[in-house]
Structure formats: C-alpha cells, structure tokens
C-alpha cells in the first residue's frame, strides 16, 4: 500500500510540477479542468450512450405530454409517473460510470485536499502539535523531541486522560522540516517549497487501508514506545477568484463541472 501511495503522490507531483512556481490556484485550476475532461471521457467510454439518448428522448416526450395535457389531470399524472420511472432508469444507467469513477475520484479528492486545503506553517507562527500514545504517556521530561527546519517551542504538556502530549512548532528555515518524537520521525507541514505540493497535517504509525485517500497523513514507522499518531493544527486556505474567496472544493467542483459540460458539448457526449 505504501508503494502505491508513493506512486500516486509522485504521479500528482509530476502533473503539478509545471505549475510549482506559479500561485497554487493555477495548479488547482489545471487539475480541475483536466479532471472534468477526464471524467467525461470515462463517462463516454463506460456509459450506455444509446440508452441515455433513448431515455432522454423518452423523457422529453413525457415532459411535452405533461405540457400538452395540462388541462387533463389524469393524463398529467400518468405522464408524471412515466417521467419518474424514466428518471429512475436514467439513474441506473449512471450507476456504472459512477462506480467506475468512484475510487479514482476519492483518490483525487484526497490528493487535492492534501495539497490545497492548507497553506502550511508560516514563518513566525506557532503550530500546535498533538501526539497520541497507544497506552500511558511517558513523563514529560522523558519525552524526546527533536526537530529539523522547525523550532520546538517549550513547554511540552501532557494530557493523561487522552494519552496525548502537545507541544508547539515554529517555522524557521522553511521546508523540508521534520520532527522526531520518542524515536518516531515524521514530516511536518510542507516538505516542498513548490505550490501544489503535499502539506502534511499529521502522521500515523498504524494507518488504515484507506491510507491512499489521506496523503496528508505521513505514514511512519512505529517505535514501540513512541506515539502512534499525531496531528498539526494548521491554518486553512482559500483562493481569490472573481473577487470572491473560494475553498479548494468549490474551485474544483465548479471548474471540473464546467469543463465536463463543455467537453460533453464539444464531443457530443450524452450525459
């Protein structure tokens, strides 16, 4: 799984590489448009285009029927019932392409979330790090924390009830940055200066099989005595487009949808 994760991250790094020196919005826009076009291609390949065309014609007729017989409630109800049936059939036809696209879409979503939802640690700002131990937290003075590229700001506090320890990091030298807590070494925030690179928001020594969907979590080797996971409280990020502030999700959904619809129109794909 780790190798697949490595390959996926590398694949997206490669796609976004040309945009790495531009503001991150350009990389996000490119991915959104490319994804929209990609999805419409996949849709054409796996969907029953004839069936969709047939259904659309039928649904058009049913709507026309409702409009023409608006003075006859019985007939309108009959056409409305048919229309509902046709809609259900349409959803069934969409199921196959949706299933085909579901996993790539979730992977894509995770990648974009990891790369565009946070601007990472900023110089001079302190980030609270919380690490989770599997069992009892060791005494604060025996927890060893070292950091590269970031500064550990004392003190270290222990929350026994939750088996957690917290401390703060301050960005100093810029990426790459990493921390080692009781022998567990993890990347911290942005490990790359280019825009669109992954911003790590935590680490996990025992990740779930869904690790492919969470590239913002650094998969680490557990040390037995050390923490099993940790997370960083990083500030969020949004993008200014047309004078408004968009979350990455909004940018992605709007621009991928526009690209998909435009692609469908140009390539005469029935959706």
């Amino acid at each position: 799984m780790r190798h697949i994760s490595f390959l996926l991250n590398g694949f997206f790094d490669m796609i976004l590489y040309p945009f790495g020196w531009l503001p991150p919005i350009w990389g996000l826009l490119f991915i959104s448009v490319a994804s929209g076009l990609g999805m419409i291609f996949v849709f054409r390949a796996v969907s029953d285009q004839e069936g969709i065309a047939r259904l659309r014609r039928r649904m058009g007729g049913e709507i026309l029927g409702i409009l023409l017989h608006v003075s006859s409630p019985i007939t309108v109800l009959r056409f409305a019932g048919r229309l509902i049936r046709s809609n259900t059939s349409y959803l069934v036809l969409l199921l196959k392409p949706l299933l085909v696209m579901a996993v790539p879409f979730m992977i894509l979503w995770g990648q974009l979330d990891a790369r565009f939802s946070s601007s990472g640690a900023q110089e001079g700002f302190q980030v609270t790090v919380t690490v989770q131990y599997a069992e009892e937290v060791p005494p604060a003075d025996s927890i060893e924390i070292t950091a590269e590229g970031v500064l550990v700001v004392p003190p270290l506090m222990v929350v026994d009830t939750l088996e957690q320890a917290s401390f703060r990091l301050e960005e100093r030298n810029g990426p790459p940055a990493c921390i080692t807590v009781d022998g567990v070494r993890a990347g911290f925030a942005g490990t790359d200066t280019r825009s669109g690179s992954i911003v790590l928001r935590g680490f996990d020594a025992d990740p779930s099989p869904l690790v492919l969907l969470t590239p913002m979590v650094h998969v680490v080797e557990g040390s037995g005595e050390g923490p099993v996971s940790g997370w960083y409280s990083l500030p969020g990020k949004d993008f200014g487009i047309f004078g408004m502030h968009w979350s990455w999700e909004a940018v992605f959904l709007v621009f991928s949808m526009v690209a998909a619809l435009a692609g469908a129109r140009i390539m005469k794909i029935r959706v």
Partner: protein
Amino acid sequence: MNRRDFLRMAAVTPAALLALNTGCASRTRPVRRVIVLGIDGMDHFLLRSFMNEGVMPNTYRLVSRGGLSRMRTSNPPQSPVAWSSFITGSGPEVHGIFDFVHRDPETRVPYLSTSRVVEPEKVLSIGDLRLPLTGAKVELLRKGVPFWKKLTDQGVPVSMIKLPVDFPPDPCGARVLSGLGTPDLRGSQGSFTLFTDDARSITDDTSGGVVVPVRDYGDGRYNCTIRGPRNTMRAESPYMEIPAEVWVDRVADAARIDIQGSSTMLSAGEWSRWVELRFEAIPHLSSVSGIVRFYVKEISPRLKLYMTPINIDPMDPALPICSPSGLSSDLAREVGRYFTQGFPEDTKALSRGILDDEEYLQQAWIVLQERLALFEHELGRFREGLLFFYFSSLDLNIHMFYRSIDPASPLHDSTDPRFKGSVRELYATIDGVIGRAMEAMDGNTELLVMSDHGFAPFNRSFNLNTWLAEEGYASVSSPQSRGRDMFEALDWSGTAAYGLGLNSLYLNLSGREQGGAVPPDQAPALLERLKADLESVTDPASGRRVIANAYITSEVFPGPLPPYAPDMIVGYDRGFRASWETTLGSFPDEVVTDNLDPWSGTHCIDPSVVPCVLLSSRKPVIDDPDIRDMGRSIAGLFDLRETPEAGIDMFAEGEA
C-alpha cells in the same frame, strides 16, 4: 521694440507677474497625494511637551516644515461627534450625532448613536425556523455627505482605512474600512469573556463582558461554552454557541484549547494568535464567522482564561465592515487577521480588573502592531489621491493611563511605576508612524496629522442626576432604587430634567417624552435657569468649578434639531466629567466623588479645554482652524474644479 513699447512692457510685466504671483498665492499648489493620519486623542499640550523633550523628532521635523495648530473640536468633544464633523464638514445639527448614545424620546431607552440593525420585514416561519424573506440590514445613522465624495466624483482615488463613525461604510466611491463604531460579532461595542473556576472572580456584573464559571472534572479538562451572536433564524433568537475543551497541565503550566477540530496551546501568560470560530445558524447551510484571541492569565491553582470580544472575521465578514466588500479579506491576506471592532483595546477588562495594567498593555500592543502592519501595507500601495489612516491606540490607552502622568489622580500613587512611561512610549510610537509617512512623501505629497480632541484628567466624577434631584429638577420616588440604572428611582411626573450619556441633558418635555412634565412654553426659561445653576456648581472638596459651560443646544446649533437631540450639552471643567452612573441614569448618594476607575483621562468635557491638533507639511494660513474645515482643506490641496462647500480651506490665502 521702440522706447515707448519698452516702457509699456516694463510697466506691465511687474504687474502681470504680481497678478500671477497673487494668483499662485491664493491658489495653493495642487498635489498628487495627500496622507492624513487620524490620531484619536492626540493632545496639544502633551504633544508639545514630548516634542520639547525630544521624544518626537519626526513630528518636530514636520512642524518645522509646515505647522502645528490648535484646532477647534466639536461640541461635545466626543469622538463620534468630532469624526462625524470631520467627515461631513458640519456640526451635529447636520450629521445628527450628538453623543455616544442617544435616547428614544418616548421610552427614554438609550441606543448607540452611530448605527442600528434593521430587522427583516418579512420572515417565513417553519416550525422553529425563521427564514428572512427580505434582508436584515445595518443602517448608518450619521447623516450628511462625506467630503471625499467631491474627490471621487472628480476621479481622485480615496482610501479611508479604519474610518471612525462609518459603520456600515458610506463609501461614496472610496475604499473604506470601518473603524470606531464597528461592533463585535455579538453586536456590542466589545464584550470579553473570562472562563474561570475561581469563585472570587465570578460576579453578576456584565458591563463590558462576562465571567463564565467552569469546573475541572478532575482530569485537567474544562468544558467551556463560547457564546456567540443570537440566532435570528430560530424562534426566540437563542444564542449560538460553540463548545470548547480546555485541557490544562499544571506541571507544565500550559493549556490546550480545542475548538472545532483545531488546537491552540498556550503557556500561562501567553496570548494566542487569532482563532477562528464558526457559529452555525442552520447546520451546513448558514453560519457566521468570528475570531478571538485567548490569553491564559492563570492555570494554577485556578484556571483564568480570558477571551477577547468575538471580532467580525475580516476574511469572511458577517456584517458590512468595508467597501468594496472584498477589502477586509484582501487586507487580512496581506497582513494577517486583525481586530475589526471599533474599540479594540479592552479597556473594560482593565476597569473590571479582569486584566491588569501589564496584560492590558500587552493586548493594546497587539492592537497597535496590527494597525502598524495595516498602515505599512496601505502606505506601500498608495500611489495617488487621498489616504486617510486612523489610529485608536493613543485615545484608549491615555483614557486608561492618564493616572500615570497626573499626580493629582487618586490612582496615581497606586499605578505600577513600570508603566508610568507608557503615555510617552505611545507618543514615541506615533512619532515613528509620522516618520514613516514622511519617508513616503515626495514633492507632490502633503501630510496632515490630526486628532479629534485633546485630553484632560478625569479625577472627579459628577453625578448629574443626583445633582438634579438635590436641586429639585428631578424627583426620586424610590430611594432604595437610586443605584439602579435607567431611572428606576425616578418619579417622572415630578421630574423636569434628566442626564443620559456623557454630556447630554434632556428636559422631560411633555408631548415629546412619555409622561413629560415640562410644558414646551416653559422650556426656554427652565433651560436658562438650569444653565445658570449648573455653571455655578462647585466641588465641595476643593471649591473648584465643576462645569465650565452649559450649552443650550438650540442656541449653539442653528436650525431645527431632531427630537433625539439633547436640550443641553454639559461642558465639564478640567478634572471633572459625568460619572459612569450618570451615563446610565442612576442616582448615587453623593454629587461629586473621586474617580477610582483606571479610566482616568477624558475628553468628554468642555470643548475649549480639549482642542484637537493639526500638524501639516503645509502651513495653514488661518490661526484657528476648526475640525469642520478639514474636508474642504484636504480637497483644496488637489487641483479640482469643485471642492466641498462646508468649512474653510485653511491652506488657501483667499479664504483666510
């Protein structure tokens, strides 16, 4: 050229040159850029003192180049009144702002004079839900036309940053970020919260903020509820709340505040960065954003966690605080989030003892640093036109620390000696701001530094309502209610006058006030008698006169006045001011008492005692400028066809 022509020319040329020269003198040289720094509360006397001491070298340079003038302030010399006069070039009779608070004549209920919320007219009710069909809006109560409208109409770019008395913004084509008068997210002028398990800190007093009792569950966890604004989309508008968990480690003397999936760790004595809060009116559909800073005052033995008032988030403002609408978020992106409330320094927390002097100054320093960052950003992008930038720090901090420079203050000796230089340091910081503005000047730039009023000590409190009762102008029917606010102790049928707000006195006029006792035809004589009596009041402790001038409003301001205007403006003498109890309509036992509140400096007194100042890179040609002249004078510095009509252009020879 023959001799006759030569002689004719010799005679004409000097006259032509003289005429040209006169023309130049009467029309000031047009400029491309004007920077106006609005320094709230910069005092003429203190400024001169610090300049003479060498604390303000940049200011000294500016004065040497141009001039330093005492400028007449508004009457009363309160910031909302004075800045409204600056904006509109007129007095309260035009802009309609007479005091920080006005009262509804019928109910006598006070309200903020500068803005109000207008509820939506049509609401669709579905069960518990209240869906507005028309938009609620916030209305600016200041009237009149801003002076910069003439500038923007003629193509001059205008930026007014942290502009007072302009919430919601009345942009008239300018970039505007609202300042003084902007509420916090709860709609108040700033309401702090202290979470504590220290029973000694818990009181019912809600002035300026609330103390919320919390308890340790034995595992170092405190459950805190952050109370936000009211949810107008629900029946009975309950408060929107956000749960927060505070974990403390008493060994490390640190706390971790977990809110909405984000953690902030602080040691005792530390201030947090801005923490974002999202209050959901309808989950996933409608929410409002706010920002707060936390301060861990104490962890052991008891938790004392201070939270600033919930500021409107400039990244996603829930109320209109700027124009164009993206300005506040653009600025936040450039310089980071910042205090958006109009009174950012938490003076109430210091007055209530929630923060001590050192903690208050730390918070005030954060405010000032944010403001300096905003100023630096604006200065960096300023290419052409008018840039107005407002600083509140001097005003609010001198309100709180006048006691440190005034040996006559009842609190002078108890003030921590470490902070006795804080006023000087503030003036030095402002001098740095003036220095930065001077660095940004070129041959086509003029710099004006102005204040809205000066400052005076507030050592003795005058209980106006108590005095009115003692002199027979008000009738107290319920002596046990004397200490209660909103005139609970009064018998209105026997009351001729009452005080509300900082300088306002109202007649209980029949036909205007509900249950009014004074027939309108008796009002003029009553006002004359009140004026004479008030101006003869002396302080029993010192024999000093308490009130310098009592102004009959209709005599001071020409034309018809609105019904909410006070009938009299009380101009207190130096050292005196209306008590806090007067502002809320209660009746303490004594007429004049020592002011033991850290709020020890004031300007809400007679305008002649607290003139404002004007520093300018161009020397004014009139000796007694007025704050109402500023707009016309600023516009006159540009080469415009039309300038505002109100006021006098203090830089133009012709107008002098």
